[in-house]
């Protein structure tokens, strides 16, 4: 456990010190999104990497969080700090209720059902024009603020988002090392064996599904207040797939892997400016080659690759 804590402290220092190097400019803005996407990827990884349950509808939970926060603050003038937990509560309840029937399904069926759920949510965003503004979106969402400190620029937002981001990372690292984390992995390996060992697999799966949705909703609220504008296009099926790609590229069942995946996929479009139309192919290619050649993701695949290269070099030296 101490090792985990040291790892986390190292990570936290790295994150908190990053603005000293990259301060100002457009990169800060991108790093804010790395923070939001890290929260989302870590949340999905809890479900997919630890419990072994796929979801292709997480963009929907992200979206509900964003829209609820946005509507409550922009349209009804609520305090943002009040709207955020309420949105999380609503999303958590929704995920808990739908979790019971949906998590009875396995594998491909679960993937299709969560995908369907995500698309239904997306359609609702588009069609409830009175509430959400429909396809043209909802604007005028206020920034978060504490007293007179208003989080209205990238620098302030970076620290705001990453405070939440680091909290989520710490929470998930802790959870993974706890009894619950071990139970989740047991369910992943064999649900029957886990049940024999006294794990209530059904309830546990629903709980982790709801927890994962709550974190996604939180990320959604933060997204809404940072962007001050939300539109359905950000919460469609493509974004669910992007989240899945982040988790798979980083490595299933690795919290820091999810950060790596999120960082890579958020920075990638920036590196590929000018070649924007190619990004869809690059996502597809990355996802496919990761599953085929590096099923453990970057966190496990890269060290193995280094070892193999080193060994080959050694072999060449000897010959």
């Amino acid at each position, binding site marked *: 456990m101490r090792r985990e804590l040291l790892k986390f402290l190292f990570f936290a220092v790295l994150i908190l010190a990053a603005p000293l190097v990259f301060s100002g400019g457009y990169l800060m803005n991108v790093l804010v999104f790395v923070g939001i996407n890290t929260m989302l990827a870590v949340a999905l990884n809890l479900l*997919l990497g630890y419990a*072994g349950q*796929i979801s*292709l509808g997480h963009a929907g939970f992200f979206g509900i969080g964003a829209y609820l926060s946005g509507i409550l603050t922009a349209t009804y003038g609520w305090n943002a700090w009040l709207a955020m937990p309420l949105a999380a509560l609503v999303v958590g309840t929704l995920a808990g209720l739908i979790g019971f*029937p*949906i998590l*009875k*399904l*396995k*594998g*491909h*069926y679960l*993937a*299709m*059902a969560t*995908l*369907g*759920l995500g*698309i*239904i949510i997306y*359609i*609702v965003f*588009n*069609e409830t024009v009175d509430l959400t503004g429909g396809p043209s979106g909802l604007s005028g969402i206020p920034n978060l603020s504490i007293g007179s400190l208003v989080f209205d620029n990238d620098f302030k937002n970076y620290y705001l988002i990453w405070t939440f981001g680091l909290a989520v990372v710490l929470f998930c690292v802790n959870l993974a090392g706890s009894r619950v984390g071990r139970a989740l992995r047991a369910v992943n390996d064999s649900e*029957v064996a886990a049940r024999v060992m006294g794990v209530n697999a059904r309830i546990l799966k629903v709980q982790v599904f709801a927890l994962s949705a709550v974190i996604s909703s939180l990320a959604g609220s933060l997204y809404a207040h940072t962007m001050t504008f939300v539109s359905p296009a950000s919460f469609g*099926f493509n974004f669910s*797939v992007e989240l*899945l790609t982040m988790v*798979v590229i980083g490595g299933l069942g690795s919290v820091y892997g999810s950060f790596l995946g999120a960082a890579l996929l958020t920075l990638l479009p920036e590196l590929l400016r000018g070649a924007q*139309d*190619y990004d*869809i*192919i690059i*996502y*597809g*290619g990355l*996802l*496919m080659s990761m*599953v*085929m050649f590096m*099923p453990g993701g970057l966190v496990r695949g890269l060290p193995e690759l280094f070892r193999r290269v080193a060994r080959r070099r050694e072999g060449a030296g000897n010959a």
Partner: protein
Amino acid sequence: MKGNSLPMKGREFLRKKRTPMQLEQILQYSFSGLSTGAIYALIGIGFSIIFNATGIINFAQGEFVMLGGMLTLFFLELLQLPLWAAVPCAVAVSALAGILFERLAIRPLRQPTPINLVIITIAGSILIRGLAMLLWGKDTHAIPPFSGDEPISIAGATILPQHIWILAITVLIIAVNKFFFYHTISGKAMRACSYNRRAASLVGIDVRRMVLLSFIISSVLGSLAGIIVAPLTMTAYDVGIMLGLKGFCAAIIGGMSSGMATVVGGLILGVLESLGAGLISSGYKDAIAFIILLLILFIRPQGLFGKAESERV
């Protein structure tokens, strides 16, 4: 027979209730629903064939539908082929894409767990969609109808010749499909695989060849569906997602059968969707399919017509 009795009843109904608009509309929606339903059925059968042979839900199924439409357009416009030549060319290229997909993505997979298979087929679908976008751009295109667009009036509802083409071709494909699975050696071998892969390989069936064959057949079915629907709904590089998902919905209603149950599932879905769009709200049209999908998965995962099966561990 049904087609003959319906209009008669319709006319009587009209006289009594004096709501001609309403009834004509319902007929109209049902007709167009049946033809989209036929498309869903074809795509759904493609899903089922692969699922029965391999246990894989091919998330890239919809992309073959897109390939059918886009390739036909490509052969028609850029190579200036006539329609009768463009269609087989498009189907052949789609089948080739199906073969490549199975060989390059599915077969080399080292850990074919359900999650990895879901991810790899999603990745494949993104890749195919991306390549199509690069090759043909993001524009929406129309394919000319097979035989003009002079509407035909039936009992107050008008249908297009293309609707008849769709229904006729679908019936033909289903008949060929039935013949293949019940009266040819390869078809019977594939059915054997779907009952029990190990037992099939023990009696000398090359299971891997059957897997490849299932991908070929379902990419052919998918591309044909894409070709016959393109004159009605237009085609673009991204039409595959929705069509694929609705085809899957049809297959789920039919309990993943590669026969009549999925056809009926597709038709039910098409008609419900069309009626819902017309009578309730067109914005929620796509949601109808997914609500049905979720309800069926929650309540009757064995399909609308299947018998309940005890859970095997």
